[in-house]
């Protein structure tokens, strides 16, 4: 049976096998069963679950988003764009499928980061949209109410939707061949909605009983900035560091919602990492991040956060693998993230094992014009008796040209 029959759509009419078609199709197929990201009941704790805007390569090697070898448009590493010589568009799509404690599943897909960079005057400028906090979760629970001495069946539903994101303008430059710096300024964006409804049993109350519903809508804002550095002390070592700062995360209620705006002191976040070549084609990477959420905990309520929250992880990238003459780097990694917000007073954390691959779709003039990366994470989140398993797939598509 010929390859043409296997891939009737992707293959050219002459029947010549095209690795580009296979890679792209496989990328799509691999993404099909996935669906993962911040899909978690832990999104109901505090301000939500952190949704790091990491690309597929970073997730595949267990990184936290800084110190990766090479140049890329990263929402967490302002200096990482300094070496991009072509205008670049990067988008990461992230389907997630989570299995909750009681066996139910949840899933959705989103774009944790989308960005554009443009080299100009020995600098590179960028604009990125990135995720920050995920607040998608809901509770649906049947109840038996005592309404003036009569038992009435009811269903309570609470739905929280929306995300806090960031829009950032970035600038980066290479001060020397081995040293690059970058900064970003931006703002929190996003809309959060919360809705509570109660539906009562018409058989107990009467025909025509209406649902009770109350809801609120808040718009996120607040200045933020970050700075980063990437240093290549040797040809086989990259070190990076970044710090992000937020004036405050301000949640302003809509006119219909009413009430006062709330402001939260999102802490400074420090990220450091590095990657080094152990052997030809073998890259090792490690990174960690730190943020102290104590102040936010005091603003929310006492004991709402764990205080200092660490994330750390690492992995390897084997770059000698190839398919049809094109490099197909294979990646493995692991990562642990301490979630900042407590769930009912219990600390929560996330642990993942990851794998992935990348493929240059189009190469020309020594530059990669189109590239796709895939990262698959299999992980767990736990907080006391709550335990979730999830499969998170990240697919990053990068297009360059000029």
């Amino acid at each position: 049976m010929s390859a043409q029959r296997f891939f009737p759509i992707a293959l050219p009419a002459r029947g010549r096998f095209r690795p580009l078609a296979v890679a792209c199709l496989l990328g799509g197929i691999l993404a099909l069963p996935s669906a993962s990201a911040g899909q978690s009941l832990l999104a109901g704790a505090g301000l939500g679950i952190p949704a790091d805007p990491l690309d597929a390569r970073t997730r595949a090697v267990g990184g936290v988003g800084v110190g990766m070898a090479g140049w890329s448009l990263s929402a967490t590493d302002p200096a990482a764009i300094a070496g991009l010589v072509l205008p670049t568009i990067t988008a990461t799509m992230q389907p997630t499928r989570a299995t909750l404690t009681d066996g139910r599943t949840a899933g959705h897909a989103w774009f944790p980061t989308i960005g554009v960079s443009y080299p100009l005057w020995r600098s590179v400028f960028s604009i990125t949209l990135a995720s920050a906090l995920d607040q998608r979760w809901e509770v649906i629970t049947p109840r038996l109410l005592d309404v003036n001495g009569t038992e009435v069946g009811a269903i309570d539903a609470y739905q929280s939707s929306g995300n806090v994101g960031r829009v950032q303008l970035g600038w980066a430059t290479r001060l020397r061949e081995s040293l690059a710096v970058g900064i970003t300024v931006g703002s929190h964006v996003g809309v959060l909605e919360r809705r509570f409804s109660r539906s009562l049993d018409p058989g107990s109350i009467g025909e025509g009983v209406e649902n009770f519903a109350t809801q609120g809508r808040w718009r996120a804002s607040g200045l933020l900035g970050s700075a980063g550095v990437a240093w290549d002390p040797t040809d086989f070592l990259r070190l990076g560091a970044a710090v992000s700062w937020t004036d405050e995360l301000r949640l302003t209620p809509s006119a219909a919602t009413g009430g006062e705006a709330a402001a939260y002191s999102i802490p400074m976040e420090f990220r450091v990492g590095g990657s080094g070549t152990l052997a030809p084609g073998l890259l090792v990477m490690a990174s960690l991040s730190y943020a102290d959420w104590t102040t936010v905990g005091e603003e929310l309520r006492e004991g709402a956060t764990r205080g200092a929250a660490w994330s750390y992880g690492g992995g390897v990238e084997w770059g000698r693998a190839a398919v049809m003459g094109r490099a197909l780097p294979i990646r493995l990694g692991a990562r642990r993230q301490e979630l900042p917000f407590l769930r009912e007073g219990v600390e929560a954390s996330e642990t993942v094992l990851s794998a992935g691959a990348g493929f240059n779709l189009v190469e020309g003039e020594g530059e990669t014009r189109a590239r796709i990366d895939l990262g698959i994470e299999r992980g767990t989140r736990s907080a006391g008796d709550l335990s979730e398993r999830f499969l998170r797939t990240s697919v990053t598509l990068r297009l360059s040209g000029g």
Partner: protein
Amino acid sequence: MIRLRNVLLWGVGLLWISGCADDSPTSNDGTILPVDAVTLEVRLPFSQFATDFRRFEGFGTPASLPKTYVAHDWGGGVEARAMVQFGALPRIIFVRPPGSPATVPDSTYVPVSGELILRFDTLDYQGSGTFELEAAAIETPWHGPSADWFLSVDTVGATSAWPEPGGGPVRVLDQAEWDPEEVIAPEDPEDDPIRVDFVTLEVDSTTVTEWADPEFAGRGLRISSLTPESRLAIRSVELNVRVRPSVNPDTLVSVPVGLAQVTYLADPTPGALTETFVIGGAPAHRATFRLDLPATIEGTPEACAIVECPLALSPDRLVYAGLELRTTPPDPIGLRPLEPIVIEIRPVLDPGRLPRSPLGFPLACPSGQCPMVLPSTEVVEEDFTVGAPARIDLPMTRYVRDLLRDPADLQAEIPSTVTLLNGLDAATGLELRPLQYASFWGPGTELEPILRLVLTVSTGVPNP
């Protein structure tokens, strides 16, 4: 490059498809709900939610009904007499003279006698055994659409009473018996027996001559039941007048006569009620009142623990509002419902024109089904003892919600006066329910109408 674009499009398209699933993580653990909510029920007595209660009667006339009724001493003394007015005899009839193959017109024929045929509704009769019917000629001028037991004419500017209440005096024409159980053997033995649903009565020459005179306003037929504890529905009344043609005096010709109007007179009617009100009847009865809702209501301790009390009565908190009525048997009990009486509550669009104000759409018919007072609602035994009052709920949540809204938020003013009435009959399109009333306890009584409100109050969704 064209092929590469195709490949990319397919790949990206597949990725997009993979993202179509969108199921939020859902817990069924009610303990993690960040919202406190309390549902409570409040029952407002009539004086706390309504004013200006009024009873109205006189909507429609029994003359509009497709059937007429007779009753005698039914259910504690209900009397009803069918009143029929016939059309004039034709001025010309066509008769075939002896030995002639063709008919000739005859305008000088002479009425000799008549035959009445009364057809009964075999599914709508009350009583047992054989029913004795009496046909009598009315001797007093009367007006079908407005006549009642006491008045022969009750129109604007003209009112006159019957010399004898109930359509009298009359001249008795004939009597007959109807046995609902009587059957006729069918021609085909395999067919079911045919039930006899009619009786015939004779009319004398004087009477048919009177009825033939279109100027004689008193002409008409009164049909009565002479059997105690009877109530019969008459589907049709037919009159065939036997005439002697002038062109062939040796023979009699039967000439059918059309009906001018059919109605019935009944006694007693619910009359002037003080503690109760009724819906239904013919002419129909209604009740109206104005909703005057309180701004606040008392809360329960559970509700007051999470929100401010007294509770503001607001549309967002209201999840159910229903008018609760308690039935009481009508007086006399023979006027109780024998068929479902649909109870509608409708807004009065122009209260200043009551009782003739136009009405809005029914409020209390969720899923198109209005509440009904069923015959079974009134537990009436054979000896007319009555069971416990039944409860009729008229849900009107959305209407009450609209009443509670700020008028500035509404596109049109919401009328606050409502009327309770019998829903239109599906077959006749009429509000009328002959000899049947749904009777309810009125304001100020122990079982007065109640406005039942169910509210849910909550702390509101928390700030993220």
